[in-house]
C-alpha cells in the first residue's frame, strides 16, 4: 500500500552540483506531477506528464528537467543547482477523469 514514494527524503547540495529526485507510484496512474513548496506559498507545478514517454512544462519549469521512461516513475533533475532551488519538492500522481492527486511525503532539498 505504498502509493507515491519519493527518494531521497533529504538532501544537501552545493551550488552547481546536479542531482535527480525519484518518484514512484504503484497505482497505475497516467498522470504524474512535480511541485515545489516554498514558505508562504502554495504548491507550484514544475513539470508534469500525461503518460509514459511524455512530459510538459508547468508554472515554474526553469532550471529543472524531467523524464518519464516508465509509467510508474517520474524523475526530476537539477543540472546545476542554485540556492533559489532550496525548497520542499512533492511528487503526485492521478488517474483519469476528476480524480484527486495523490502526493508523496516530499523531498527537502537545501542548496548551499
Amino acid at each position, binding site marked *: 500500500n505504498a502509493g*507515491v514514494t519519493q527518494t531521497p527524503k533529504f538532501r544537501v547540495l552545493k551550488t552547481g552540483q546536479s542531482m535527480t529526485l525519484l518518484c514512484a507510484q504503484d497505482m497505475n496512474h497516467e*498522470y504524474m506531477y512535480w*511541485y515545489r513548496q516554498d514558505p*508562504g*506559498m*502554495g*504548491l*507550484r*507545478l514544475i513539470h*508534469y506528464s*500525461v503518460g509514459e514517454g511524455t512530459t*510538459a512544462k*508547468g*508554472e515554474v519549469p526553469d532550471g529543472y528537467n524531467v523524464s518519464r521512461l516508465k509509467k510508474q516513475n517520474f524523475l526530476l533533475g537539477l543540472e546545476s543547482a542554485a540556492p533559489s532551488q532550496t525548497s520542499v519538492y*512533492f511528487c*503526485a500522481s*492521478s488517474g483519469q477523469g*476528476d480524480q*484527486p*492527486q*495523490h*502526493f*508523496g*511525503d*516530499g523531498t527537502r532539498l537545501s542548496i548551499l
Partner: protein
Amino acid sequence: DQQVKQNSPSLSVQEGRISILNCDYTNSMFDYFLWYKKYPAEGPTFLISISSIKDKNEDGRFTVFLNKSAKHLSLHIVPSQPGDSAVYFCAAAHGHNDMRFGAGTRLTVKP
C-alpha cells in the same frame, strides 16, 4: 500571479465547535475545486472536492461550499477535533494540467 488565495494564514478553534476555512480564486476557467490536509513531514492528503456544477458537497464532518459568482469556496468542519489540527490547502483546477494551490491555512483545534 496568485490565482488561488487563502487570506487567513492561521485559525484557532475550540474542540467541538465549527471550523470555517475560506478560499478565493480569480480564474473563471477553474471547474474543479479541492481541499487537501497536510501534517508536518508528510505530503498533502486529499480531503474533499467539488465540481463547478454543484454548490455543496458533504462527506461526514466535512462540507465544501462553492459560490461561483463570488469566486469563493469554504470548508466547514463540524465538530472540530484535535486531530484536525493541520495545514489546509485549497486547490482549483481546469483539466489535469492546471491545478493551482493556495498558500494554506494552519488550523489549530484546542481541547
